[in-house]
C-alpha cells in the first residue's frame, strides 16, 4: 500500500521525467507527447482518486503497441529521433508500474537520459540553462526519492549545492578529459528541415520569397573588412537553364584563375544547413579543408552536408581573372539557351549588342535598360507565364535578385556572350560586440558573371542597378515587410538591436569555445598553458592532478561546512586530558559521573592516587562551577592545563 510519502516521492520522480520530456516537446511528434501526458495524468490520478491502473498483461500490450507505433512513424527504432520518442513512451509506461523506490529511481534515470538526448540534439546557448535546470531537478528528485520524508525545498538546496561543488570538476574534466577523435558508432540523424541556399533557382515560379532571419554564417576578418560593395559570398554557380529553372552545370574543367588585389584572411563559423555548400568571400583562392573541394567554378563543395556548426579559415581575393580563354565546351555551355523561347528578349539582346559594339558596352547597355525601364525591386512579384523572361522584362518588371540575375544572363547568352548565374549571400551585418559580420539567410542573393575576353569572368549585379541600396544595406532594412512581425519589431528598436548583437556575440562565443571544443582545441589550450609537446599522456596527468586537487578541496570545504559545533574551550580540553590520564589507572570516568563523584570513586579504587586526583578534580570543579573572577580566570585555567600536562601518575 503506497503511503503519502511514496506519492510525494513519485511526484518528484515524475517531475524529473516530465522535465526531460519537455525538452523534446517541439521535436517529437505531437502524439508522443500527448500519450506521455495521458499516462502521466493517469498515474498521478491513481494516487489521489480511485483510478485503476492497467494490469501486467495490458502494460506489456501497451509497450508492444508503442514500439510498433514508433516503428511505423520513424521506420526504425534506432536513431536519435526514434530513440527519444521510444524512451519517452516507455518511461511513461514505466510510470504505470512505479511502486517502489527502485522504480522511482528508474524514472529519474530516464529523465537524465532524455536530458542527454536533448544535448545530442541541440546545443544552443539558449537551451543550456534549460538543461542545467533539468539536471538540477533530476538531482533533487533523486534526493527526495532516496530519503523518506526529505523536504522538497531542502532537496533542491542540497542538489543545487552538490552541483555547485561538482561544477569545478565538470569544467576540469571538460578541458582535460581526452577527447578521442572519431566515432565508435553512428546513429542515423533524423530528417530535419532543410534551410539555406539550394543549388537550383526558379524565380518565376515563386509568388513570394520567404526570408528567414536565421544566421547562415559568421565571418571574422583578421585585417580590414572588405568594402560593402565587395561583400559577395560565393555559393553555387548555375549554368543550366531550361526556361524556368537554373541548375548547376555538369562540371566542366575550367582553367585556374590568377588572383590579384587585396587578400582577405578570415574565419567563418558556418551554421548547419544540411547542404554541402561552404561559403567564402568572392573569390576563394584555396580550399579551407581537405574534405572540401574547390570546384573549377570556385565553389566550395564539401563531401558531406553541413550537419553541425563548422569552422574554417578562408583566403579570398577580390580581384581575379582567368588566365586562359574559355574552352569551346565552356563557351557552349555558358551561351546555351533552351529552344526558341523568349523571342522578344532575344530580339532586345541582339539589338543592344549590335548598337554596343563591344561585349563590355553591351553589358553596360543591358544594365542601362534595367535602370531606366521602370523596374521595381519586390519580394512579392507576380508569377510569370511560360515565356518567363519576356513576361518579366516587358510586362511585370517586378522581381527580386533571382529575376534580375536570370533575365540578365538570358540577355547576355542571347547575344552570344557567355554568362552564368552565381548564388550566394550579399552583405552581412556588423556585430560590434563580437567583432564579426553576421550573414543571414535573408542576405541570400543571386548575381551574374559575364565572360569578357581579356578580363575573364566579371561579376555583374543587375539587382544593384534596380535597387542600389541593396548593396550597402541588408534586405531587412530594405524590405522590412519580408520578415516576420516579431523580427521586425525586434529590429525596430535600436536598443533591442544592441541587445540582439550582444546575444549573438554570446552565441558566437558559446559555439566557438564550448560547443566546438575538441581534441585539437584541447591540445592548443594545453600548449598555451605551457605544456610543450602536449599529447594524450600530458592530458591524462594534468587531468589526474586536477581531479585530486578538486577532491581535496571538496573534502576540506565539506569539513569546514559541517565542522564541530563549537570547539571545546581550554578548560574542557584540560579536563578531558586529565580524565584520560586518570582513566589509565584502570578506572575510567563513567559518563554520568561528575568530577567530584569520579574523584571519590578513584579514591576508593586506588587510594594511592586519591590525593592528587581529588585535588585536581576539585580544582576543575571549582574553575568550572565556582564563582569566576574574570580577571584571573584565564590564567588559572592555563595553570590548571599546565598542571594536567605535567601530571605523571605512578
Amino acid at each position, binding site marked *: 500500500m503506497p503511503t503519502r510519502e511514496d506519492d510525494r516521492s513519485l511526484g518528484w520522480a515524475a517531475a524529473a521525467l516530465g522535465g526531460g520530456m519537455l525538452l523534446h516537446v517541439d521535436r517529437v511528434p505531437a502524439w508522443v507527447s500527448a500519450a506521455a501526458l495521458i499516462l502521466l495524468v493517469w498515474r498521478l490520478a491513481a494516487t489521489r482518486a480511485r483510478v485503476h491502473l492497467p494490469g501486467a498483461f495490458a502494460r506489456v500490450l501497451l509497450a508492444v503497441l508503442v514500439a510498433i507505433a514508433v516503428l511505423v512513424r520513424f521506420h526504425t527504432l534506432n536513431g536519435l529521433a526514434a530513440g527519444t520518442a521510444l524512451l519517452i513512451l516507455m518511461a511513461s509506461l514505466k510510470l504505470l508500474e512505479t511502486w517502489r523506490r527502485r522504480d522511482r529511481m528508474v524514472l529519474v534515470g530516464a529523465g537524465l537520459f532524455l536530458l542527454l538526448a536533448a*544535448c545530442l540534439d541541440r546545443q544552443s546557448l539558449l537551451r543550456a540553462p534549460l538543461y542545467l535546470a533539468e539536471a538540477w531537478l533530476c538531482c533533487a528528485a533523486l534526493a527526495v526519492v532516496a*530519503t*523518506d520524508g526529505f523536504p522538497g525545498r531542502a532537496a533542491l538546496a542540497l542538489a543545487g549545492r*552538490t*552541483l555547485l561543488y*561538482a561544477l569545478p570538476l565538470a569544467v576540469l*574534466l571538460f578541458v582535460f578529459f581526452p577527447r578521442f577523435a572519431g566515432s*565508435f558508432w553512428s546513429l542515423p540523424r533524423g530528417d530535419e528541415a532543410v534551410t539555406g541556399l539550394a543549388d537550383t533557382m526558379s524565380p518565376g515560379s515563386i509568388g513570394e520569397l520567404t526570408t528567414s532571419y536565421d544566421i547562415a554564417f559568421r565571418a571574422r576578418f583578421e585585417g580590414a573588412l572588405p568594402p560593402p560593395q565587395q561583400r559577395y559570398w560565393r555559393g553555387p554557380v548555375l549554368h543550366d537553364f531550361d526556361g524556368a529553372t537554373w541548375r548547376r552545370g555538369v562540371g566542366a574543367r575550367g582553367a585556374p584563375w590568377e588572383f590579384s588585389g587585396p587578400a582577405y584572411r578570415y574565419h567563418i563559423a558556418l551554421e548547419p544547413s544540411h547542404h554541402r555548400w561552404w561559403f567564402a568571400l568572392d573569390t576563394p583562392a584555396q580550399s579551407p579543408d581537405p574534405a572540401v573541394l574547390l570546384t573549377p567554378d570556385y565553389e566550395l563543395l564539401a563531401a558531406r552536408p553541413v550537419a553541425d556548426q563548422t569552422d574554417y579559415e578562408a583566403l579570398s581575393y577580390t580581384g581575379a581573372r582567368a588566365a586562359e580563354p574559355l574552352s569551346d565546351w565552356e563557351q557552349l555551355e555558358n551561351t546555351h539557351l533552351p529552344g526558341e523561347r523568349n523571342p522578344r528578349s532575344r530580339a532586345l539582346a541582339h539589338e543592344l549588342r549590335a548598337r554596343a559594339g563591344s561585349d563590355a558596352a553591351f553589358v553596360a547597355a543591358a544594365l542601362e535598360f534595367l535602370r531606366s525601364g521602370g523596374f521595381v525591386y519586390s519580394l512579392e512579384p507576380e508569377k510569370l507565364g511560360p515565356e518567363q523572361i519576356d513576361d518579366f522584362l516587358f510586362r511585370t518588371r517586378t522581381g527580386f535578385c533571382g529575376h534580375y540575375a536570370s533575365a540578365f544572363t538570358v540577355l547576355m547568352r542571347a547575344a552570344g556572350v557567355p554568362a552564368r548565374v552565381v548564388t550566394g549571400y550579399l552583405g552581412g551585418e556588423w556585430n560590434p560586440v563580437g567583432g564579426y559580420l553576421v550573414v543571414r539567410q535573408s542576405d541570400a542573393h543571386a548575381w551574374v558573371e559575364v565572360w569578357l575576353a581579356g578580363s575573364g569572368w566579371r561579376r555583374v549585379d543587375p539587382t544593384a542597378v534596380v535597387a542600389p541600396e541593396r548593396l550597402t544595406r541588408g534586405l531587412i532594412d530594405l524590405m522590412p515587410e519580408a520578415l516576420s512581425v516579431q523580427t521586425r519589431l525586434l529590429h525596430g528598436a535600436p536598443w533591442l538591436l544592441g541587445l540582439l548583437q550582444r546575444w549573438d556575440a554570446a552565441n558566437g562565443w558559446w559555439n566557438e569555445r564550448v560547443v566546438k571544443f575538441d581534441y585539437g582545441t584541447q591540445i592548443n589550450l594545453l600548449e598555451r598553458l605551457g605544456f610543450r609537446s602536449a599529447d594524450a599522456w600530458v592530458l591524462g596527468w594534468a587531468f589526474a592532478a586536477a581531479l585530486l586537487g578538486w577532491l581535496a578541496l571538496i573534502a576540506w570545504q*565539506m569539513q569546514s561546512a559541517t565542522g564541530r559545533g563549537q570547539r571545546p574551550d581550554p578548560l574542557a580540553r584540560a579536563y578531558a586530558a586529565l580524565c584520560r590520564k586518570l582513566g589509565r589507572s584502570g578506572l575510567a570516568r563513567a559518563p554520568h559521573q561528575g568530577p567530584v563523584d569520579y574523584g571519590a570513586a578513584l579514591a576508593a579504587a586506588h587510594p594511592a592516587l586519591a590525593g592528587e586526583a581529588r585535588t585536581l578534580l576539585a580544582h576543575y570543579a571549582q574553575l568550572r562551577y565556582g564563582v569566576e573572577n574574570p580577571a584571573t580566570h584565564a590564567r588559572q585555567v592555563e595553570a590548571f592545563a599546565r598542571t594536567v600536562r605535567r601530571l605523571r601518575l605512578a
Partner: protein
Amino acid sequence: MAVRLPFVAAARARMAAWVRRRQGEDALPVTLTRRRLYILPTRAGVAFGLLWLLMLLAGLNYGNSLALFLTFLLAGFALVAMHECHRNLLGATLVAVSAPPMFARGAGALSLSFENAARSARPGVQAALDGGPLASVDLPPQGRARLELPLAAARRGILRIERLRLTSAHPFGLFRTWTWVHLDVEVLVYPQPAGSLARPIASGSHPGAHPHGSLGGDEWLGLKPFRDGDSPRQVAWKAYARGAPLLVKEYVATGSDLSLLDFAQVPLPDPEARLAQLARWVVDAEGGGERYGLKLPGTELAPNRGPEHRHRCLAALALHGIDDPAPASAPRAGARPLHAHA
C-alpha cells in the same frame, strides 16, 4: 541482503570477524570516525554508474560538448554525493543503547540515542541488527535523537546483541556508508506468560505475608537510592535539602490479597511451562494490585508488589536455570537468546 548462498554467508561471517578484530570492542559513547566508516555504491549507484558510462560513450562518440559537460557534471555530482553520504555519519555519536526487559515472543525495542555535534542536520540515519529491518531517524543540528529498533526473542533468557549496523544512504541513495558497532548489550527476556491455571491465593495466611506486621494503609519500608522512573513525590526532599543524596521513600502495600507462587507447586510437568504459568500469575497479580511472592529452587522473593518487585520476579523466572552468563558469539542471529533454558 537477498542473497542466501552458503558461500556468501561464509564470506559475510569472515568479513564480520575481520571487522570485529580490526575495530575491537566498542565502549559508549561511540563516535563514528573515518577509520570505522565504510562506503560502497548502492544498487542504484551502480545503475547510475552504468547510465553514466553510456552517457560518456555517447558524448565522446558524437564529440558533443554539451553531452560531455553534462556527463562530467554528473560525475562530479556522484563524487560529491559520495562525500556527502560519508559525511552524514562521520562525527555522529552513539551515546546510549538501552533495551528494557521484554517478554519472549513479545515485542521489544532496542533504543539508540544519537548525538549530533555538527552544525548541519543528519537526515536519514539508519540502524539495524544483523539481518533485521532498517529503522531511520533524522538527527537535528547540534542535538540528539532516539531511534528504536524492534527486537524479537523466541525464548526467555538473555538476548545478547553483539553487533549493530549504523548506516545511511542519504542524500542521493547512490552510496551507502555504514559502520558496525560492537557492544555487549544484554536484554533480559522474560518467559512468555502462558497457562490458564488458577492463581493460588493465600490471603494473609502465609507467615511471610506480614514481614513488618502492620495492618491497613501503606507502610513505610525505608529509603533507597533514587533511580530513573521513581516518582518525584516519593523523593525524600527534606533529606536531600540537608545534603544527603537523592533518596526515595519506599512503602509497602499491606492488607491486600497475597499469593505465594511456588515453582514446585505448579502442577505442570514441563519446567518451561511452569515458568510460563508463573510469569502469567506474576503479571496478573501485579495487574490486580495484589501482593505476591515467588519461590524458585534456590531463590525466594518475599511477597511485595510494584514495578520493581514485578521485575525481580520475572527476572528470576527468566534466568532460572541459566547460570553461565559468559558471552558467546552468534554472528548471524543477532536476536537469538543465547542462554535459553533448553
